[in-house]
């Protein structure tokens, strides 16, 4: 895909403007609830417990969460693969489950399996036809998309000979086949090499620039951090936190002052004398503030005692830090158990009871 990443994106279909989604919120769902029940009525699992989520048109939205958090369940509900126990709100302006709306959605499922007897071009043609794309347009977009994902020379080859990465590229091309307003990608970089991952990132950005909305579901936090405008962290069936990365990390910003070794005593005195909310550990002074002015007294105190300052840097939590914080039980310090069943029973290790958007269990 490398050599094609900067090639022109396939032209958007000349669909009438009225057919394009013009609303602000591509996804605007509330109280999404899903309980799985066994054949016998036993073994009930509460996979989603009142998810509220809004995704703005033209943005890249990332959905994070540990295994069993309910990410795929939520995506499958939106894609009508799973029927929700309860779901309010809209999906591209229509109720969730409205089949014709799916014409405007491209979807890459996790662990997807294309029919192995089809060639790459036939895969795009078949699924394009299922999306009701006219034949002429299927042909045109098929060749354009295969070029985009670097599979042009493989167009006539059967999928059974494809590597994992090639299948993933084909899956992304397939998700774009219907010229969608919304692209839902479940683990798009799974099995893709680093170069391919970079290409996918670039593609996502370009899709956003074209005005499409991208909904990403991934474990690769560093990649999400690079491309996502907004993220939501899902833990045990509940949205733990949701917002822009800027919003989510605002409260964790701090400054770190690194001093030269051999001046521990003077450094300790300087920190105490500065009166700032700072702590010293391993030659690094951490000041819990995002205001640079509040760092200056510490620097002054250090300099007045002849302490050599090696570096002063602003620091904020990474998405990974946020994620780990969200999935760690504050009482035990251990990772929360996967799935939502335990949380539903109120066991230790249950999900957080409230998030930025998610309502507490008791409130529902």
């Amino acid at each position, binding site marked *: 895909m490398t050599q094609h990443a900067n090639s022109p994106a396939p032209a958007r279909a000349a669909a009438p403007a009225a057919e394009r989604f013009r609303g602000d919120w591509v996804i605007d769902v509330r109280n999404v609830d899903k309980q799985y029940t066994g054949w016998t009525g036993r073994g009930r699992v509460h996979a989603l417990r009142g998810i509220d989520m809004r995704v703005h048109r033209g943005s890249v939205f990332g959905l994070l969460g540990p295994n069993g958090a309910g990410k795929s369940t939520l995506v499958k509900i939106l894609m009508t693969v799973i029927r929700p126990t309860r779901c309010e709100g809209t999906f591209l302006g229509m109720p969730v489950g409205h089949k014709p709306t799916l014409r405007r959605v491209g979807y890459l499922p996790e662990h*997807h399996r294309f029919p192995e007897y089809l060639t790459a071009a036939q895969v795009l043609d078949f699924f394009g036809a299922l999306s009701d794309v006219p034949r002429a347009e299927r042909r045109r977009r098929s060749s354009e998309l295969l070029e985009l994902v670097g599979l042009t020379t493989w167009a006539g080859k059967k999928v059974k000979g494809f590597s994992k990465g090639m299948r993933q590229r084909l899956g992304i091309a397939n998700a774009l086949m219907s010229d969608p307003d919304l692209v839902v990608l479940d683990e798009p970089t799974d099995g893709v090499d680093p170069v391919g991952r970079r290409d996918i990132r670039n593609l996502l950005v370009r899709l956003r620039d074209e005005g499409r909305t991208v909904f990403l579901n991934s474990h690769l936090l560093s990649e999400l951090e690079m491309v996502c405008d907004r993220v939501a962290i899902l833990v045990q069936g509940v949205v733990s936190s949701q917002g822009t990365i800027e919003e989510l990390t605002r409260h964790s910003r701090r400054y770190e002052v690194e001093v030269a070794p051999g001046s521990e005593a003077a450094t300790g005195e300087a920190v105490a004398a500065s009166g700032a909310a700072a702590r010293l550990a391993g030659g690094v002074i951490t000041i819990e503030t995002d205001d640079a002015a509040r760092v200056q007294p510490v620097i002054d105190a250090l300099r007045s005692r002849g302490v050599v300052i090696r570096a002063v840097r602003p620091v904020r939590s990474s998405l990974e830090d946020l994620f780990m914080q969200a999935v760690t039980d504050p009482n035990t310090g251990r990772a929360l158990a996967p799935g939502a069943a335990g949380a539903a029973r109120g066991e230790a290790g249950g999900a957080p009871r409230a998030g930025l958007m998610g309502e507490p269990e008791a409130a529902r």
Partner: protein
Amino acid sequence: MRQTLAIFLDAYRELNSRKLFWIVLAISVAVVGALAIPSHDERGIVVFGQSAEMPMLSTKAVSTVAFYKFLLQWFGINLWLAWGATILALISTAGMIPEMVSGGSIELVLSKPVSRLRLFLTKYFAGLMFVALQAAVFAVGAVLLIGLRAGVWDLRPFMAVPLIVLFFSYLFCVCALVGMLTRSTLLALLATILLWLATWAVATVENFMLDQRLRHEREVARLRSQSETMRTTLDALDRQIAELRGADRSDAAPEPGEPSEPDAGDAAAPATPAEQAAGTPNQPPPPSRRPPSRRGNRSILDAGRQLLGQIDAGGGLESLERNRAAVARQVEQLESQLGPATERAAGSTKWHRRVYVVAAVLPKTGETKQLFQRYVIDKRDIEGLLRVLMDVTGDQDAGAAESAIGNRSLWWVIGTSLAFEVVILGVASWVFVRRDF
């Protein structure tokens, strides 16, 4: 429509990718080709110039067109399409639904703007394409075979296409249901074969029970008819004896109006209840069936005539009374046989009805494929074959059950089978529409 066509095209590509599809197709062509080798003559069948005794298929029994049609029915349809090719078709198509609903595949299709019901049913009908194509190739071959070998261009063998597709669909619906529920090709295949065996077993038992019932009912009818005939003879003898005694006493001339010749035995035995149940009410029994009581009645009538002749010839009162006593013993003997025979008939009727009820709810695989014979082969050829069969076996009831089953209504054969299929497909569709994947 675009989506439906896409699913059918995809099914064709799937079949096309399987070697088995082409192997089965080649065997179908080979089977029709092999059926072109034999011909028939006055003795029977001729293969590579060697004539073999087979009166049923001789030129005396059936026409040349019917000869090839019977071969197509017995070997092409009953043996190949409805057994060998069906097993191979099931092996080829049993995985279609489980593969569609497997993880990683089902999300790709369910996330498309196609309703679940349409998706499932289209996939199901696309699965029938395997046998439809096989049967179409077979039908083309059959038309060519009859045209080239018998010189008659008859398009009726194309009936094989809908009949074989129907036959296969009865099985494939179960395959689709189990495959969808379990996502397992193996379980789907096993369940389908079990159903197939069950329908075959029930049909075989029903056929046997019907045969028994018809034989027993015909036996009762025969005994009843013979008994009535003998009683008529007895009455005639009684009247003659009384007249002779009266003449002796009064020496008067006999009353005008001789006793008429007993004719009760000439009437054909009425259709038995089983025959009425086996066929439609408005369909008469097969015309080839000979009334079973006629031969027995005729001998008794002959005996009656002989007795009356003796009377006319002046055999004397004593001789007449001896004969009367002999006839009376025969009547007694026949009536003593009638009771157990009636019980046997009632028993076999009861058991046949029970099996009939079970058979009613199951698909009629065997009877559906036999419809080819009904609609493609001329009736007189079927009658000719049955006539020779009865003559050869000496069994007047030979083929009675088959004939009765062959005369069952389309509603019974296809209607009840389609009802079964609709129920199974309805359950499968309902689960598919409601299920989380």
